[in-house]
């Protein structure tokens, strides 16, 4: 029992390291070959985890080999546009200037029902509202609605807006993030003063606190 426990932890740690080295992308954004590698790694790790008769190296070596292959392919894809087209494929336009490109739909084996489904998921129930629809290399559909059908922006209404950047996390789970505090050119004394306005004496009792570019502080205390 302890053997299986230890082997599971070792392989889990290895998979975490390998997935981390492969880069940060969500499942839905992976290229086909990246998804294949992720699935293969999980299978390779699972087998030695449960079968103690198989040496651990029989799981570790294939996983490392896949990591090498994956990094190599990603590197080639990064450096060469031609290779990228071969490895990842090219995006395909399915709707151009409001017209469905039937040949492209057929070549991608994408049915009109698939297209309508994806448009509905993108909150576009009417295909007539679409100017361009592009099937990306990761399988996602990118949609550009017709200019009259897109969402309004402040620019359309000629409204001036102020700059809106990222908000900075100042306190997470009672721990102060001094680096972010420095980024906004503030110090602990200032933060204590701000927290006292919320009736908070110690930042260690704060679950989460962040500040946006307008200087608005969001604070939530820990549950006692």
């Amino acid at each position, binding site marked *: 029992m302890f053997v299986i426990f230890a082997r599971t932890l070792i392989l889990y740690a290895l998979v975490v390291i390998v997935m981390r*080295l492969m880069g940060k992308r969500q499942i839905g954004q992976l290229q086909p070959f990246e998804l294949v590698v992720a699935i293969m790694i999980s299978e390779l790790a699972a087998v030695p985890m449960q079968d*103690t008769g198989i*040496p*651990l*190296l029989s799981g570790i070596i294939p996983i*490392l080999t896949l990591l090498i292959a994956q*990094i190599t392919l990603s*590197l080639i894809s990064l450096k060469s546009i031609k290779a990228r087209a071969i490895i990842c494929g090219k995006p395909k336009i399915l709707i151009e200037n409001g017209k469905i490109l039937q040949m492209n739909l057929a070549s991608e084996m994408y049915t009109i029902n698939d297209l309508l489904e994806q448009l509905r998921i993108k909150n576009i129930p009417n295909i007539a509202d679409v100017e361009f629809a592009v099937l990306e290399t990761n399988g996602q559909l990118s949609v550009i609605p017709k200019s009259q059908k897109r969402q309004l922006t402040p620019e359309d209404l000629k409204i001036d807006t102020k700059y809106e950047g990222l908000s900075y996390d100042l306190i997470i789970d009672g721990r102060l993030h001094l680096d972010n505090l420095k980024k906004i050119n503030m110090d602990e004394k200032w933060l204590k003063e701000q927290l006292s306005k919320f009736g908070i004496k110690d930042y260690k009792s704060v679950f989460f606190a962040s500040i946006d570019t307008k200087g608005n502080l969001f604070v939530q205390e820990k549950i006692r």
Partner: protein
Amino acid sequence: MNTTIKAILIIVLLLAIIAGLAGYTLNLLYTSAGKLENQINLIEEHIKEEQWAKAKQNLSLILTEWENISRQWAILIDHTEIDNIEEALLKVQGYIETNNASLSLTELNVLKGYIKHIPEKESLTFKNLF
């Protein structure tokens, strides 16, 4: 450090580790299998000449050697293969104890087959690839 250089370094390091480990593993398997085979051949000769005392002596040497080798092999090969060798060794021990020449020689032959098979299975050959 540049991402490309970092990636290339990771690839080269991992390839070096795997290649080194593969080479070391194969060498270890061939060397230790060779040692065991030689001992087995010696026992076979003793049995054919009915020198049972010497056969038992050599067998105990193999068993001692096997204790070290099995620990190393357990990290590298399927444990079923190790179990097969241990089963064959137990049988050989029993047959030699009872001075049974034909069964001893048969089982020693089987044991040799199991042992020879281990490094052959790990070699980079056409047969192993496909």
